[in-house]
């Protein structure tokens, strides 16, 4: 059962990753080429029909995988790096400083990733893939920082760590030898879950018109464009949505499977 989740996750993510990589070398048609009719229905030449400009829709959805993975992974890396550094540092800080930090994070976390990301996008002159990564990554870092801080404090409270500290171990060394090895597994699971959320956040930003500019056709952008043509070409809202769900579901399964592997005791817990 547990293995099944992990396998299913690997399968779905692997599939999306393979498609995303494949688009660098091959798509059924050039996603930018206006070769078909306007909103033509699925056919042998265009398996998922064409969009308003006569571009092959399947090719666009495939390229969408590339963007979703790129922004998702970029944001997760950024959020993880910033969040873990801040969280661990805060755990070492003096009580007052640490409390203030914890309170600030509590407030930040109450704001959904999307809202924070919207503000970051608004604060940048022009939207790009980079802005989306930055926006989502920064919003995510608050969640990771909070978790990293709590985990680090827990490790620091262990007797053997206290002993090590008393024996004069530098905090950098302490972090490397005791803290990081202990907190990383749990953080990895959290980061995997955040990865899924980041993919959704990217699609939402694009849907709201705050995502990367064309021709970077994110799934959110495709959905937004297809919404008004749903009567004539329902596949336009179905296919990108399914692709999105398959990727996020895969990532979530992967996160669950990972947790079960690392922490078999807590099956099914949050």
């Amino acid at each position, binding site marked *: 059962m547990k293995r099944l989740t992990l396998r299913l996750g690997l399968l779905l993510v692997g599939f999306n990753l393979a498609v995303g990589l494949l688009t660098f070398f091959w798509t059924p048609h050039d996603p930018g080429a206006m070769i078909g009719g306007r909103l033509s229905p699925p056919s042998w030449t265009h398996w998922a029909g064409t969009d308003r400009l006569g571009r092959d829709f399947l090719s666009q959805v495939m390229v969408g995988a590339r963007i979703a993975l790129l922004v998702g992974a970029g944001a997760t890396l950024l959020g993880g790096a910033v969040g873990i550094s801040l969280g661990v540092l805060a755990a070492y800080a003096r009580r007052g400083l640490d409390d203030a930090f914890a309170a600030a994070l509590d407030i930040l976390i109450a704001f959904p990733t999307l*809202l924070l990301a919207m503000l970051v996008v608004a604060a940048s002159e022009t939207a790009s893939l980079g802005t989306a990564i930055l926006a989502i990554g920064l919003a995510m870092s608050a969640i990771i920082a909070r978790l990293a801080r709590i985990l680090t404090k827990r490790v620091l409270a262990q007797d053997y760590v206290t002993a090590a500290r008393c024996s004069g171990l530098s905090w950098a060394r302490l972090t490397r030898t005791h803290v990081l090895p202990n907190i990383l597994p749990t953080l990895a699971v959290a980061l995997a879950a955040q990865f899924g959320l980041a993919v959704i956040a990217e699609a939402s930003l694009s849907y709201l018109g705050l995502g990367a500019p064309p021709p970077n056709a994110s799934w959110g952008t495709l959905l937004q464009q297809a919404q008004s043509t749903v009567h004539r070409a*329902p596949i336009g809202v179905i296919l990108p949505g399914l692709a999105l769900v398959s990727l996020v579901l895969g990532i*979530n399964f992967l996160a669950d499977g990972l947790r079960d592997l690392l922490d078999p005791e807590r099956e099914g817990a949050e």
Partner: protein
Amino acid sequence: MTRYLLRRSFVLALSLIAAGLALFVLLRLLPGDPAAALLGVGATEAQIAAARAQIGSDLPIPAQFARFMTDLARFDLGESFVTQAPVLPEIGRRLQVTLPLTLAAFLLAILVATPLGILAALWAGDWRGTLLSGFSQLGLAVPVFWIGILLVWVLAVNLRLLPASGFPMRGWEDPAGSFRALILPVLTIALVMSASLMRYVRSAALDVLGSDYLRNARALGASLPEAIRRHALRNGALPVISVLGIELATTLLGAVVVERVFALPGLGSMLLLAIQQRDYPSVQGVLLVSTLMVLLIGFAADVLQRLIDPRLRERGRRPGE
């Protein structure tokens, strides 16, 4: 308890001031000159200078901050650059859409997620449990706007069962119309939200089901439903409440996407428009009010947890720290 309330209120007040400071800094980071945004096309240099004086963006930063905080203390959120109308009443009107939407979706989600989560825990290991977990997994992976688009397509446009979008002109003076307008958006949010709540309920229920006191209660002759009612709900509720607080805040602020799908004149759409129009007073107002609500929700969740759990009343700090 009184002591705790006092202390917690003090923290609340501090957090508000901190949030005000954070917002002040954040808004100064937004690009563009607010005075130019205020005037729009064709403004002369003299007009821009006059506008700067009017909104105070020509003052030194500390003076601007002092002015900002005094205005806040007087509940003066300023006037919109675009409409020239005061921001606070506008927020009030928008909340008449966003609050009912959020609360109804939230309640519905709890009503759906609690029994389903408990069932999923009871059935853990058999196919029914797997099915329920599968549903909740799916709900977590589906973006809320996609559900909205699909629901509109199927229920509103194809089957013509419900209004697809918009909100009645007269608002809640037209209760039937308002109610109908909110059905689809509420369903959309509740679907996604119940999936995520279900996970928490399930894991809390699993913890409780495996706990000693439940086993004791059953050994003493209580039936399983009775034992759940007497002990599990109360104990299981604790971790769920703190999650609920965050979830409620998230829904309230996250309504922006749903409001857009359904063209609802709520707080989220106000913020989106204000960001697009670089309408600083409106952005600031919406953010301040939502921060306030988020903090109040956190406050309520904390107090509620204390009331339910006698153990916490004695301990000084919140769980997990």
